[in-house]
């Protein structure tokens, strides 16, 4: 911590040795660089956290629904509906690969339609022709061939039956999640590009400011790599400071957003929480940022120095 505190004034060390004087004088070698990096890192952390959470939500939902099949008995006559439901259940209980098949109780069906139809006194939902639902769990995924075979068997005994894979209901949602993940990846790439551009400009600006000093140390026999290392260290320090601030800001934002989404009480959103491995990935973003900045600064400075005497 003492060493870290000593480095905070961000004076540039000549060649990195203890007690050396700064080769380049500007404590603010790269001006607003730490803040630019902080903003980029914070935005990257939020984008990455969103992508990871969406991936989790999609994976959890997909796993839940993978072997799920819904059988609806769509018949207006309650007695016929009941008869076909029982017939379908009988077929399903004997069908190969079916782990379980259970009729959804009436009170649960009522609860499903309650948000739309209400529960006013005197309402009798039993009079409504709500389809009978059978929740079926298959061993393995509900692939189209298995679904077709199941549909054929059920419809033979219950003509009013509609057999659907549960995942098909959420297919548009999965597609949207996939698109959002790609968008998050694109944003991260854009942030990285913006960071590289900012470092490039800052490095060129710093080179211009210190051109005379660079020429002098060149004449004294300094190599391009020695000079580039000075800039590289300065920018890495900027990036590290910005990275820490950006990570903190990003994590606070992610936690705040997580709390807001958790308050929605939606099962799918709740499954989008981050695992500890995700937090490790997020913590690695500033490190990746520092490396990106160092490499960019080094290549920029070396390229510019090659054009000098």
């Amino acid at each position, binding site marked *: 911590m003492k060493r870290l505190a000593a480095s905070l004034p961000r004076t540039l060390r000549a060649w990195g040795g203890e007690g*050396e004087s700064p080769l380049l004088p500007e404590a603010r070698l790269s001006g607003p660089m730490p803040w630019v990096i902080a903003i980029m890192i914070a935005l990257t952390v939020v984008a990455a956290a969103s992508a990871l959470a969406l991936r989790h939500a999609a994976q959890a939902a997909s796993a839940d629904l993978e072997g799920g099949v819904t059988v609806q008995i769509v018949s207006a006559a309650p007695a016929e509906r009941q008869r076909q439901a029982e017939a379908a259940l009988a077929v399903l209980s004997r069908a190969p690969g079916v782990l379980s098949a259970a009729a959804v109780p009436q009170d649960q069906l009522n609860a499903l339609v309650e948000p739309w139809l209400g529960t006013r006194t005197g309402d009798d939902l039993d009079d409504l022709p709500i389809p009978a639902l059978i929740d079926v769990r298959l061993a393995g995924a509900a692939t189209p061939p298995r679904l077709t075979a199941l549909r054929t068997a059920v419809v033979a005994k219950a003509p009013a039956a509609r057999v659907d894979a549960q995942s098909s209901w959420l297919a548009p949602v999965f597609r949207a999640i996939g698109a959002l993940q790609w968008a998050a990846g694109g944003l991260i790439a854009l942030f990285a590009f913006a960071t590289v551009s900012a470092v490039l400009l800052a490095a060129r600006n710093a080179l211009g400011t210190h051109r005379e000093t660079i020429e*002098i140390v060149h004449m004294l026999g300094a*190599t391009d790599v020695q000079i580039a290392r000075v800039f590289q260290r300065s920018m890495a320090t900027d990036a590290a400071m910005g990275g820490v601030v950006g990570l903190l800001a990003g994590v606070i934002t992610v936690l705040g957003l997580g709390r807001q989404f958790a308050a929605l009480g939606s099962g799918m959103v709740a499954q989008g929480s981050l695992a500890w491995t995700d937090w490790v990935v997020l913590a690695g973003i500033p490190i990746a940022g520092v490396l990106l900045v160092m490499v960019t600064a080094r290549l920029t400075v070396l390229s510019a120095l090659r054009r000098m005497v």
Partner: protein
Amino acid sequence: MNQPAAEIVQFDNVGLRYGAGREVLADVSFTLYPGCFYFLTGASGAGKTSLLKLLYLAGRPSRGLIRMFGTDAITLPRERLPGFRRRIGVVFQDFRLVPHLSAWDNVALPLRVAGQSEKDIAKPVSDMLEWVGLGDRFQARPATLSGGEQQRVAIARAVIARPDILVADEPTGNVDPDMAIKLLRLFESLNRLGTTVVVATHDLHLIRKVPDSLIMRLDKGKLADPTGALRYPPRRPIEGGSAPDSLIGPGPAGGNLLP
């Protein structure tokens, strides 16, 4: 034991022009040997600074051949330039001190560039500053130093790493006569250790102080060499073992230039 010395610098029909302008140096040919002391003279605009720039590898000629330390300096790859430059000490006419560094740090720069440890450079730098009379001003920045003091810092920086060639452009122009003589003695001491010294100056009084020196006179970009002695000089031996105490030391690798 005396032994013939190989040439350290060789210019052969060197010409230099900036852009599309006229040649500021034309058909310049000479050979420098280790341990020789050269004065470069000539009127203002004769091309002295341009010639020195070629000598300290700050530029490449428009034509001709330059060999330094036995290597073609014109086709020298960029990555080998630092190694050559570390063997050349330069006193710039405008001093070219690093403005934000103290006198001490400016003098220490060549040793730091060469990768010497802080422990090894502390004493030589302090001694050198003491010797040029700036021991009490080691913390001063160039802007707070007088012209003469800046010049002494520049000279200390040029000689601290005990270069093979010392190139000095009007090195005594801003110091009083006593200090000028003292600095000249430093150059001579370095020269006796084998360093080739090239001093550009207008000061005839200074030239007379070094009777063994060779004179290179530039006139409108051409080197006056009526006898051919500069181009084909008689080989002279390295004079070893006669260095004054002030310069006896283990050399750049060992650190001490001054006791």
